């Protein structure tokens, strides 16, 4: 349904027809094809659900069909009579060993932190909350056995709408006495003066709808015990094997050194696998109890209830400016839906955005306040961008609203306020220091690729002739904070862990290289990119580097992959570790070549004496000499390995300019993206092919939020968009072709000059699309369309079109629609 401009696409593609040949001397910066691909395109990957162990049993979870209820009784005995069933446990049966699922971010001292049993014992608090498990010889028997379990529920009131929840009339956690999880304020500058003195004040409310991350691989876990040794290997479709290992030990009390966690091939995460889940803990405890390997795999509709959701915020934004457009101040009042419980990072997600509302703009004052709210819904947590897409959306939308208020061109308004290239490094009003950037360069390039002036002219023509299809142009100029994170900053925010990353580079006696990384890739191509980094640093062939990851026994130290951190922290760590190897090898080479260390040069993988090029040792020869240890410097251990644990000194701040042109069919409300252009600056680039791929994928998810996806709960707390039939993940015909380009302003906070890219596309694209939709309809009196901009919503906005500046408070569930849909017999 999206139109593709073949000429634009052809130009873009022509640039990419060159593929690096095997003998490229410099790897970093080259579009090396991926080492990861061979097993993936031949069906030889090892997904967690592929794993089979002798005696393995299948676990299935019985989940509450009610959003809020007391468990009056639960009887699993009938399940044991089902053929093939080996065991069945209620929450109470396992409670002593299961513990409470951890939240690693107590954002305030008085944050309300409810107990979170992996299986409910007394009360269920969201549809999908687990109450019992069965264990059977095969997954089919396990599914049957669930139906045999008898549970009596005493209904309690569902709490679905955030603003209603905040009245505390009905409590999610009665023992806590409130539905308010926390209130987190931040303020800088004289906010009152900025607003009272401002000539223009614009206030808006935006709704960040709830999303279902939908990694195509459903979550799965297999626990393989060595019962007699009380050792457990946990295979999990996770982004965080290291954090998971620690958390499993802390949650269950099992000794940390007896746990091994392996992330095999993982089919996407997008933040939804950055967590410690009930099923991982339960499978571990059941494996311990039964002494047998245990497998659990979610079905998609199960996962939609049981895997964390993204976003879900009510944003009240106020901006104060002068008539000439200069921003004075920004106020943000956020309500963030936690769901029923706090998963690993739940309360911190909206706060990750707290520092990004001022975005790329200068201003005198900033005030932020976030209220976390409990509801009887699936817990929320990180989803691609995690707090920053929400922030970018709010500021980029209100900039367009302010531009209209001022009668100013929206791009001009941005130019007047953004940090200019000469002003970096820049300390923002939110307390961050942006190291580098060049918003002018990215914007100029984007405008040219987009054909901005021509599109504006076409827009005018269509408005004048009252065309059925109206054209809109949406702008999103963004930066984001990623490369999580300086550990000290995390500590100051009360996050429980640090943000360092570990790397070990090992030269084997035959000269081959092993790179051990603490990152945990699930599609991002770290094996390829780290090979490129190591190959350049060590002067070896790309093919001679093997990258090891994802297994706590092989890569014992790491802080895993999320928050666009892996290249910035992990890739840099690889570079640093390789540097240590070279330093050590230099010493050995000097010793072997009987030269002073200062006279040794390292070039193209070989150490030679300055002035005597014929006297040289390759890295491999040095490695073999170290291995044999026949003749090493006296104080040197026979080990050619370099290890680094790198703690970054700052976040990284990629930025970009995104331009979106949409055609809106004013008769039906259908939105079609006609053109999408983005120029992103992610600093120096290790692999442009991987970077571009990350941007593409991010754009698709951001566009999906703008136009298609919404997790909808009815007034009873049922997730009515419970399958892919109703939750609209876009397919190939629904996503346009993109034109992507880059500028390159190196980061100054790390030696590689790199910035993160994984989330940038998602962060930037949602406001670009929605701004375009509103822009298309502005002349019809439309000033906002709530996301997703479905045809019906667009159509209603056109017909409401009374130019209302600030939509009235909107509940987080559209109750009226859903009451009717309850009676429609299931609809589609």
């Amino acid at each position: 349904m999206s139109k593709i401009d073949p000429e634009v696409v052809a130009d873009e593609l022509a640039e990419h027809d060159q593929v690096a040949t095997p003998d490229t001397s410099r790897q970093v910066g080259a579009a090396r094809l991926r080492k990861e691909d061979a097993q993936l395109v031949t069906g030889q990957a090892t997904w967690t659900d592929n794993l089979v162990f002798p005696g393995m049993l299948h676990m299935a979870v019985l989940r509450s069909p009610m959003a809020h209820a007391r468990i009056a009784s639960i009887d699993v005995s009938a399940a044991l009579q089902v053929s093939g069933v080996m065991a069945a446990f209620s929450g109470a049966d396992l409670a002593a060993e299961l513990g409470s699922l951890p939240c690693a971010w107590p954002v305030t001292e008085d944050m309300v932190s409810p107990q979170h049993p992996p299986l409910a014992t007394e009360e269920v608090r969201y549809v999908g909350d687990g109450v019992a498990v069965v264990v059977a010889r095969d997954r089919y028997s396990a599914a049957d056995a669930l139906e045999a379990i008898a549970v009596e529920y005493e209904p309690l009131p569902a709490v679905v709408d955030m603003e209603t929840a905040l009245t505390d009339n009905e409590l999610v956690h009665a023992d806590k006495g409130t539905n308010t999880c926390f209130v987190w304020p931040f303020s800088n500058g004289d906010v009152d003066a900025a607003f009272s003195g401002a000539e223009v004040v614009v206030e808006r409310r935006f709704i960040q709808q709830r999303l279902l991350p939908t990694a195509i691989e459903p979550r799965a876990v297999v626990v393989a015990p060595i019962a007699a040794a009380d050792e457990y290997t946990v295979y999990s479709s996770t982004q965080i094997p290291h954090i998971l290992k620690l958390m499993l030990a802390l949650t269950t009390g099992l000794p940390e050194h007896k746990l091994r966690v392996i992330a095999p091939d993982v089919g996407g995460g997008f933040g939804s696998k950055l967590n410690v889940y009930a099923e991982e803990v339960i499978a571990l405890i059941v494996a311990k109890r039964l002494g047998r390997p245990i497998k659990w795999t979610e079905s998609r509709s199960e996962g939609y209830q049981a895997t964390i959701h993204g976003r879900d915020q009510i944003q009240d934004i106020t901006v104060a400016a002068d008539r000439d457009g200069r921003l004075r101040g920004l106020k943000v009042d956020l309500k963030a839906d936690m769901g029923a419980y706090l998963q690993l990072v739940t309360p911190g997600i909206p706060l990750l955005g707290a520092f990004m509302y001022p975005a790329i703009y200068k201003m005198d004052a900033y005030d932020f306040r976030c209220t976390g709210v409990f509801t009887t819904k699936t817990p929320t947590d990180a989803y691609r961008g995690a707090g920053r897409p929400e922030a970018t959306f709010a500021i980029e939308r209100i900039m367009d609203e302010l531009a209209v208020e001022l009668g100013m061109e929206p791009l001009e308004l941005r130019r007047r306020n953004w940090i200019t290239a000469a002003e970096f490094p820049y300390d923002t009003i939110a307390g961050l220091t942006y190291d580098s950037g060049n918003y002018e360069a990215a914007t100029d390039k984007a405008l040219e690729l987009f054909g901005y002036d021509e599109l504006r002219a076409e827009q005018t023509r269509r408005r004048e002739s009252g065309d059925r299809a109206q054209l809109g142009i949406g702008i999103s100029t963004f930066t984001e904070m990623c490369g999580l994170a300086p550990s000290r900053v995390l500590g100051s925010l009360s996050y429980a862990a640090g943000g360092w990353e570990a790397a070990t580079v090992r030269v084997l006696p035959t000269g081959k290289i092993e790179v051990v990384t603490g990152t945990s890739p699930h599609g991002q191509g770290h094996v390829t990119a780290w090979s490129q980094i190591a190959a350049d640093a060590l002067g070896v062939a790309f093919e001679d580097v093997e990258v090891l990851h994802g297994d706590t026994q092989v890569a014992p130290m790491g802080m895993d992959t999320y928050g666009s951190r892996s290249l910035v922290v992990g890739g840099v760590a690889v570079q640093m570790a390789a540097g240590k190897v070279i330093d050590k090898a230099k010493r050995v080479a000097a010793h072997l070549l009987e030269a002073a260390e200062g006279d040794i040069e390292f070039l193209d993988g070989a150490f030679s004496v300055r002035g005597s090029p014929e006297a040289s040792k390759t890295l491999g020869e040095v490695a073999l000499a170290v291995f044999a240890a026949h003749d090493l410097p006296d104080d040197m251990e026979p080990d050619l390995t370099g290890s680094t644990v790198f703690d970054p000194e700052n976040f990284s701040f990629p930025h970009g300019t995104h331009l979106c042109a949409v055609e809106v069919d004013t008769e039906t409300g259908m939105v079609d993206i006609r053109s999408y252009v983005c120029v992103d600056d992610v600093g120096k680039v290790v692999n442009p092919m991987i970077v571009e791929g990350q941007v593409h994928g991010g754009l698709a998810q951001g566009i999906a939020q703008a136009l298609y996806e919404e997790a909808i709960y009815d007034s009873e707390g049922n997730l009515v968009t419970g399958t892919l039939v109703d939750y609209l993940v876009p397919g190939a015909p629904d996503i346009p072709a993109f034109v992507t380009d880059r500028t390159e302003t190196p980061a100054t906070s790390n030696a590689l000059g790199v910035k993160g890219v994984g989330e940038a596309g998602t962060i930037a694209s949602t406001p670009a699309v929605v701004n375009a939709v509103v822009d298309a309809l502005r002349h019809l009196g439309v000033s906002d369309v709530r996301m997703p901009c479905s045809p019906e919503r667009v159509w209603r906005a056109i017909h409401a079109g009374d130019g209302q500046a600030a939509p009235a408070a909107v509940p987080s569930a559209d109750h009226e629609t859903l009451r009717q849909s309850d009676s429609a017999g299931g609809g589609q």
Partner: protein
Amino acid sequence: MPRIQVKVDGIAYDDEVESRLLLVHYLRERLGLTGTNVGCDTSNCGACTVMMDGHSVKSCTVLAAQVDGSDITTIQGLAREWAAAQRTPEGGPSDEWAAAQRTPGGGPSDEWAAAQPTPGDGSSDDGDWHPLQRAFHTEHGLQCGYCTPGMIMASVDLLAENPNPSDEEIRHGLEGNLCRCTGYQNIVRAVRKAAETMAGDGTGSQQEVAR
């Protein structure tokens, strides 16, 4: 219990199956062919796509009991079939291969079956990869790789029906397959590239395969 005789990736099987056993589970758990994935439970995502009697199908929405007498190709058999089809003496590769897939009743001809390499001869190296596998690799049409087997098998069918598709036809031809990582752009490029190669227009140059 229903009994089925089915050929999968060139090997004939004779099995008794539970009536409700889904084809995808038969492949993954009974036959150990884990290359075909499960991504949803409502027949939307397409990760489970295989070729059955010459057509792409979602193996999660087919009962194993329904495939008696059928000929199935999964991602794991694709390269082997392509390589064998290249070796057949008469006819162009895509014609011969397509013809072999569409034998009425699903079984390949005896000659074609005899031309198959012996099973268990190990993974094909890149020289034997199907052009789609190679193109997905060279055009970066995959990231996590979970949707990829289904996406490639759907593309096999797409190109068999329409050997020279436009970008729009490629996107519509893949409407039954969801990807969350790539944003589809490079997938479209990969299919177009493979189409060129299979039509004999492309040089089919030896792109590197990183290992």
